[in-house]
Structure formats: C-alpha cells, structure tokens
C-alpha cells in the first residue's frame, strides 16, 4: 500500500501553508517529516489522513485518487503531542478501544492488546487509569492504541515533545524497533534532527511549506540537496560563510584571502556559500585541508558529552562542537579550523556544487 501526494498545495486565508509538495510514502517504512514549526508538517499529515482537502493537487492511495475521501473511510491512527487517552478507561481498555469499535472477538482483542502492551512495556500497568500514569506511560499507552489495530497509516505528530528529556531519550531509543514491528505506513513529524537520525528510515526535510529533500535519513543528513535541507537538518544551526573563489584563492568577507583547498580547490570562479556543521570546525588543530579563521571564544556551553563553543570571528559567530568537557574561557583568542574536505559548498541558488569524485 502507498499514499502519494501529487503537487499538493494548501492555501488558508490567502496564505500558502503548503506549496507544491509531491511525496510517496509506502507500507513498512518510517517516514520522518523534519522541519521547524510552521514548516507544514501537521498540514501534510492531515492531508494524508484525509482530515483536510488540498487547495490544489491530488492525493492517491495505491495509485487511485482519494482526494477528499473522509478519514473514517480510511484506516488511520494518530498520536499527538498532547497525551490523549480516555480518562475513565484503564490502560487495557484504552488500547483495546479501536479493536472494540472494529468489533473484533474478545480473545483476539486480548491477544492483540497484550502484544502491543508487551512491545511498549505496559504489561504491569494494564489495570491502571491514565491519571495514575507518568507522562511517558500515558504516551506509551497512546502509541500502543495507535499501533494495535494495524491501521494502514499511523501518524505521529511530535509525540515526544511534551515528555521529560530523559523519558524522551528512552522512548526515542525504543521507538525504531517498535515501529518496525507495526508494518503500517508510518509518518513521524519532529522538529529535532537527532530524533530523525535515531528513527532512521526516510526523512523529508521541510521548510516554509515546501518539501526540500526526501530520501534515506543518513543520506539526507550527509548529502543535503540544498542549503535549506542542510539548515533544517543541523543542530546546532549550520555555520555559513560567503566566499568568492578567484585565481585559486578564496576571499572571505572584506579583507581575508585564504588558499582554496579541499572541496573549494576544484570549483570554478564565482560566489559561493560554504556550510559546515559544528563538528567540522575545531579549535587549535588543523585538518588535512583547512579554512582557518581567527577569533575569540564568545561562549562555551557544556552539555555533557559535548561542549558547544561559540567563536566570534570577523565573519560572524560560529558554533564548534568539541567532544567531552572543554573549558574555554570567554574572550580567549582561538583559531578555528574548518574541514575543507567535508564542508558543503552551495552556489548562489542554494544548490550543492557537485565535486567530481576523485578516481
């Protein structure tokens, strides 16, 4: 089974919410919709579910036009950011509710409820009421209810956003295997790049109502098809520098000229935008091919496994990610080396400049 959006556009009160999106999602796949608030994630999910009609374009289910077919004629389950359970029903009955609606037999219901509860670690809680559960347990119940009926389409709209950090981390770890079991078309919206990486599967990067890139998650991360895709898929935010390539050199800003090394060695003369994530910038030690900038530490944020060092340079402030705890004092002068072999280079339209692979 597959659902396709074909050139779908949504305009609400004169404002474009979704613009010309084409996307096919298939059974057995995890599809992550990644983008900031208002990127169009929820709107796309509502279209797939048949809750809304697009202003333009078509929605195809298994190749057949299903535009405007209401949700109750499709097999859909949804998990929201807010924990939604029936407050007067036990965990067991909450999970069983879609099966009772579908009039399944009692022993079949019992088998399926126990299996879903097992996958989500809810067996000891089946007799409890939602208000007796922690937030994480409530959301596990909602997820169990969504996957128990083997719906064709299961939608997750930022399901972990309201959970404590640590619970979010634990559920994130478990979700990929839980979801792989479901065998439905899974669509999962999130604002967080790390969540997309952990879920794996396929990722669609979204920006201002447009689909920017869609493909296997690690590929979208490591080989962005545009500067917007790299921006959406970077946390800390993508560092960017405008460079002018001329006669084998790069001009950065007003008065800094450095040798064009690494990927910038092969590009033709012109104006480019160089993008690099925080782990491609390091302090002190140069890379085999580096673009080096001098600056000062503006701020060092220790997060545990990593330290985010904000370095102020003549070209702006860049965030560099150092492993472990790194004690950098604000004001300390440093040289920031950008890995010129792995940085992204985009032309003035935001498209990546393809470098011929060295044979």
């Amino acid at each position: 089974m597959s659902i396709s959006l074909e050139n779908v556009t949504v305009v609400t009160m004169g404002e474009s919410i979704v613009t010309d999106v084409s996307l096919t999602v298939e059974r057995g796949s995890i599809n992550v919709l990644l983008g900031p608030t208002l990127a169009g994630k929820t709107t796309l999910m509502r279209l797939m579910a048949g809750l809304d009609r697009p202003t333009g374009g078509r929605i195809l289910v298994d190749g057949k036009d299903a535009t405007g077919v209401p949700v109750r004629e499709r097999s859909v389950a949804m998990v929201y950011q807010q924990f939604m359970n029936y407050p007067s029903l036990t965990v067991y009955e909450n999970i069983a509710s879609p099966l009772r609606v579908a009039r399944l037999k009692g022993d079949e219901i019992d088998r399926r409820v126990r299996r879903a509860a097992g996958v989500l670690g809810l067996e000891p809680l089946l007799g409890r009421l939602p208000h007796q559960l922690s937030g994480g347990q409530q959301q596990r119940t909602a997820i169990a209810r969504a996957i128990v009926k083997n719906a064709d389409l299961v939608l997750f709209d930022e399901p972990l956003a309201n959970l404590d950090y640590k619970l979010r981390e634990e559920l994130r770890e478990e979700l990929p295997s839980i979801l792989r079991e479901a065998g439905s078309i899974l669509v999962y919206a999130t604002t967080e790049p790390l969540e997309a990486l952990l879920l794996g599967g396929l990722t669609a990067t979204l920006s201002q109502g447009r689909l920017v890139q869609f493909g296997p998650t690690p590929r979208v991360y490591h080989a962005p098809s545009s500067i917007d895709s790299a921006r959406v898929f970077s946390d800390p935010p993508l560092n960017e520098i405008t460079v002018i390539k001329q006669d084998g050199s790069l001009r950065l800003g007003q008065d800094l000229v450095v040798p064009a090394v690494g990927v910038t060695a092969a590009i033709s003369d012109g104006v480019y935008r160089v993008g690099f994530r925080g782990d491609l910038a390091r302090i002190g030690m140069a890379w085999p091919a580096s673009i080096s900038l001098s600056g000062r530490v503006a701020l060092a944020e220790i997060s545990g496994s990593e330290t985010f060092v904000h370095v102020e340079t003549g070209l702006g402030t860049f965030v560099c990610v150092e492993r472990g705890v790194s004690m950098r004092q604000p004001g300390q002068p440093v040289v920031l080396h950008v890995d010129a072999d792995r940085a992204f280079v985009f032309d003035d339209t935001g498209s990546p400049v393809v470098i011929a692979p060295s044979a």
Partner: protein
Amino acid sequence: MALHPINHVWEQGRAYALLGPSGCGKTTLLNIISGLIFPSQGRVLFDGKDVTQLPTEQRNIAQVFQFPVIYDTMTVGENLAFPLKNRRMERAAIKARVAEIADLLDLTNDLSRRARALTVEAKQKVSLGRGLVRADVAAMLFDEPLTVIDPALKWHLRSKLKAVHRALDLLMIYVTHDQVEALTFADEVVVMKDGRVLQVASPAQLFERPEHTFVGYFIGSPGMNLIAAKVSDHVAHVSGHDIELGARYPKIKNGDAVIGFRPDFASLAPEGGIPVQVRRIEDLGRRRLARVALGPHEIFANVPEGVSIGGGTAGLSIQQDRLFVYVDDELVLGDRR
C-alpha cells in the same frame, strides 16, 4: 513529603539550575524562593533578611514561565515600560531603561510593534525584558522557559540569556528537566530526585564525576552505564569477566557494588578488551554509538571514527580513570596508589 530539608546559599551574580524529572520537587523549591509557596519548616533569607512569610511582590523577584506572559495588545515598548510605569518612575528614566534592555535583547527594532505579531521566541524575550527592566530585581527565576521554542531558536535564546547574565550581574535560578538546558545555562546545577538534592556541582563535575548513580544516569545522552558487580580489591567481576578498576576498594561489604562509566569513555574495537555482543550501531550524525551486551547487561559505547564493526562479537575498552564504583547508589572513592 514534597521536599526534604535543603540548605543552600544562592549567590549574587551566579547562575543556578534546578534539574530533575517531573515530581522531583524542583518547581516546589523555586516557588518557595519566589514566595508562591510557604515552606512547612525552615526559613528563606534574602541577604540575611527573613522573607519566609513575605508575598512574591515584596521579594523583588522577576519570573519567566514556560509560556510568554505579556500584554498582546500593547507594543513591545509598552510591555517593557509597564512595570516601571506601575512604580511611577519618571518618563525619561523609563525611556532610557527600556532602550537599554531592548538593546540587550535585540528588541530595539521591535519596540513599536504590537506584541501579538511577534514570534513565540520574541515574545519570550519580551517576558524576560519585563522582568529585567526593574533595577531592583534581587533574583531572576526561570521555570522551563524554552519549552515552547524551536530547536534552532533555542540556541539564540540560550546565548542571549548568558549575555544578559554577564551584563547584569544577577542571581539567576532556572528550573528544567532538560539536562542540555541546565548544563549550558548554569554555573552550578542542583540535581534533584524525590524531593532530595543528590548533587550540587558544576556541569563539568556532574559529567565527569557523578556522586550518585542517578546523576550518572540523568546527565549525559545516553546516561552512564551502570552495572551490578562483585568488587574484590582492584577488580570488578561482571558476568564471568574481570574488569580492572585502576584503584583498590578493600572495604566494600560482600563486594556488592555497581560500576559506572560513561559511553563517552568506553570505546569499541573489532577485538581486544572485554568481549561483548554487538546489538546495534547508530549513526547519530557526528558520532556513532554502539549498543552492546555483556552477559545480561546492556552497555552503550562509542565507536571511534575510522573503526568499522561488523555484527557478532567486538572488544570493549573502558578508560580506567573514568570508571567509578558505587555502593547503595553513592560514589565510593578507591585508593589509586
């Protein structure tokens, strides 16, 4: 009991975070400081003066909550000026102070805009500005202020908070369940669980030397590997393997202990070290993390750059100086001679 007895001195000019899971008592503690709750026992002193029974408005405290608290129909400038007008400050003085705070928060260009038209992030900055604008603020309290902010904008707002902290020399206390927010914000983090303070330390210390197993687990993503072991002198026995501890622990009763080490200080290689079963390797973008099994114990470890691991068995190495021993959840120091 929501909160067990706590003694702590919060100092002028420092940034503190209260960190812990839901229900740990962090918000209760914040509310006691702000005067929204009166403690059943004990006292709250501001500069030595007892304020335990004083209401919030008499404590000169400014607060920022999860959701922006501003007047939607007023402009940004009017919002910032409001607390000063209420105190009948002179017009010229109000104008100067509002300009100063707007500059600090990058709101100068928004001063004449209606608050309603702002993004959530800008609204949260206005909430912050309304708190900061009063010159007599004794402390600035934050209750999960970044919850509703997009990840990319959190970076901006976090650096703004630090800049404000440096510029104004204020006491700031920040409540959150989010370790990244707590560690990046605070000079000192108070880790709480079940109404108790487990450790008060700098972010670096919490990461590098957790004094309680819960701190080890709660800080770090994923948290510390914690494994039940039998410790005899300088060796920990885990599922038939001997792990060298690099220090002697002669006094542990029956040898019953838990060893703890962070995934960041454990690495995986195709062979050598402790033999473990590889369960899964995750590409997290800028690092690779392996989930492995040692007998019944699940362990997270780093996969160093350039190392390739197939399925099956691999070798785990743990940095000895990063390996800790806990008894009854508390850190036990060994003899490193």
